[in-house]
């Protein structure tokens, strides 16, 4: 059943009783053509595009918890394509184009809001770096506008422009950047995949990966064994544990990243603002809460909660950038588990085990990549060939040192991203 304005009015008139669950809750079958381990945004998008683009419908998504309960429901919802390096640039550009058609494609309102994103700069050197990044974005076919102080002041009048330590020299404006309703993205892809025949199996934790003679044959789960000739691992922060079931060690260290939301306020922050010098970024949700975050706590962690030093740092950065925020009260904070790679860029690749594929290493930037990652991973799983925009996300780049994508320019080492 499709969604439309007419349907909303009709349901309103009849007590909202016509809405039904939008995906089934099937028991796992003993065998599928392909399995996706992980029912997060990336896993659901992979299943959706496997069914839609490649006609693979006898497939299942195995989720140990519930749909929308992992990182896809815990992030800060930013969607952008402002990457600089070849390999990243074309991938995120492609992903943003998928975002722009997503709601029509899924017939689902994900509240994608291209409200514009501004990366602030505070010195002449930083201005040069952002001008160069903006040119790279334009060369990629995306949009970028270099704003001076007056240009930023016009759209973000509430910032502390004369700050003694970080006076605002301007910003790189990315008008097509913005936010989306994160849960709706998971729900929309789940519904779309389910309608094409994909089984979405919740409360089904994978406990083992069956490999015979170097070929994957299926998985063991808390709901029994399931056979399949192709298995995709898309489990974000838990990538290390799941890959270990197939005897692999990954170039991944899981870290905690914290985020915060204030009580609901009237609209005051109309864009996504990023203050790189304080590792701080902020936007306002449609419910009115100011959603903001900072950098990693910087120690390996699966706790899904952080410590006070980073909370203090984020609050200090917020007050430095926009003193008005001191009047808002923080409603809650939380932490997510980030699958960090040495160079800060992701992995979409085959593994040494035939039929076993890997999509991981999204670090703290996985949300905007959901459609692109799903599309590219589905392409790899279905055809055995890398999808061109994601062809740089190779697992062996760390061993060989060829094709590293160190977007921050800090080095390819675990504690630097």
């Amino acid at each position, binding site marked *: 059943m499709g969604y439309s304005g007419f349907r909303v009015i009709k349901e309103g008139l009849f007590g909202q009783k016509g809405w039904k669950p939008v995906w089934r809750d099937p028991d796992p079958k003993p065998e599928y053509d392909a399995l996706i381990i992980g029912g997060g945004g990336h896993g659901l998008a992979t299943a959706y595009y496997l069914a839609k683009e490649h006609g693979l419908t006898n497939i299942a998504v195995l989720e140990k918890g519930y749909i929308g309960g992992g990182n896809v429901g815990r992030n800060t919802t930013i969607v952008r394509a402002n990457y600089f390096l070849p390999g990243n640039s074309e991938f995120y550009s492609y992903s943003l184009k998928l975002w722009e058609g997503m709601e029509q494609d899924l017939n689902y309102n994900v509240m994608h809001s291209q409200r514009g994103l501004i990366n602030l700069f505070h010195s002449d050197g930083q201005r040069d770096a952002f001008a160069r990044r903006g040119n790279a974005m334009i060369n990629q076919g995306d949009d970028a506008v270099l704003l001076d102080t007056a240009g930023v002041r016009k759209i973000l009048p509430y910032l502390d422009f004369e700050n003694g330590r970080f006076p605002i020299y301007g910003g790189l404006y990315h008008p097509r950047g913005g936010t989306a309703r994160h849960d709706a993205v998971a729900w929309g892809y789940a519904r779309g995949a389910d309608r094409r025949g994909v089984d979405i199996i919740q409360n089904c934790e994978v406990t083992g990966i069956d490999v015979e003679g170097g070929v994957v044959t299926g998985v063991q789960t808390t709901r029994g064994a399931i056979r399949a000739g192709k298995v995709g691992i898309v489990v974000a922060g838990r990538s290390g544990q799941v890959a270990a079931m197939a005897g692999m060690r990954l*170039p991944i260290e899981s870290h905690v990243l914290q985020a915060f939301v204030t009580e609901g306020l009237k609209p005051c922050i109309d864009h996504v603002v990023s203050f790189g010098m304080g590792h701080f970024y902020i936007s306002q949700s449609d419910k009115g809460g100011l959603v903001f975050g900072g950098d990693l706590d910087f120690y*390996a962690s699966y*706790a899904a909660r952080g410590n006070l030093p980073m909370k203090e740092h984020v609050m200090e950065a917020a007050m430095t950038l926009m003193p008005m925020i001191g009047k808002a009260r923080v409603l809650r904070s939380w932490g997510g588990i980030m699958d960090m790679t040495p160079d800060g860029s992701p992995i979409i690749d085959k593994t040494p085990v035939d039929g076993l594929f890997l999509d991981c290493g999204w670090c703290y930037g996985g949300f905007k990549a959901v459609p692109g990652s799903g599309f590219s991973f589905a392409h790899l799983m279905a055809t055995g060939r890398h999808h061109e925009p994601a062809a740089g996300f190779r697992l062996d780049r760390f061993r060989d040192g060829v094709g590293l994508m160190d977007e921050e320019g800090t080095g390819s080492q*675990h504690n630097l991203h």
Partner: protein
Amino acid sequence: MRITCPHCGERDRREFYYQGDAVALARPAPDAGAQAWDDYLHNRDNPAGDTQDLWFHEAGCGAWIVVTRNTVTHAVADTKLAAMVKR
């Protein structure tokens, strides 16, 4: 999170710099081959549970410390001077 420095006692996490997995103490021979170096530099067990990592008491005595720590609870079980572990 508080970490017990073998020299200085229990101190706030802010005093320490995190280097990463204590695999850093097991540097391979220069000619050990690409796989050994890949394992040393990049590949990690990344356990959800007890792990050993290397912290530097940057704002204290300057010691490198091997911390046995639980990545799920953040509980610190044991700390040793890296100089003693390496020996």
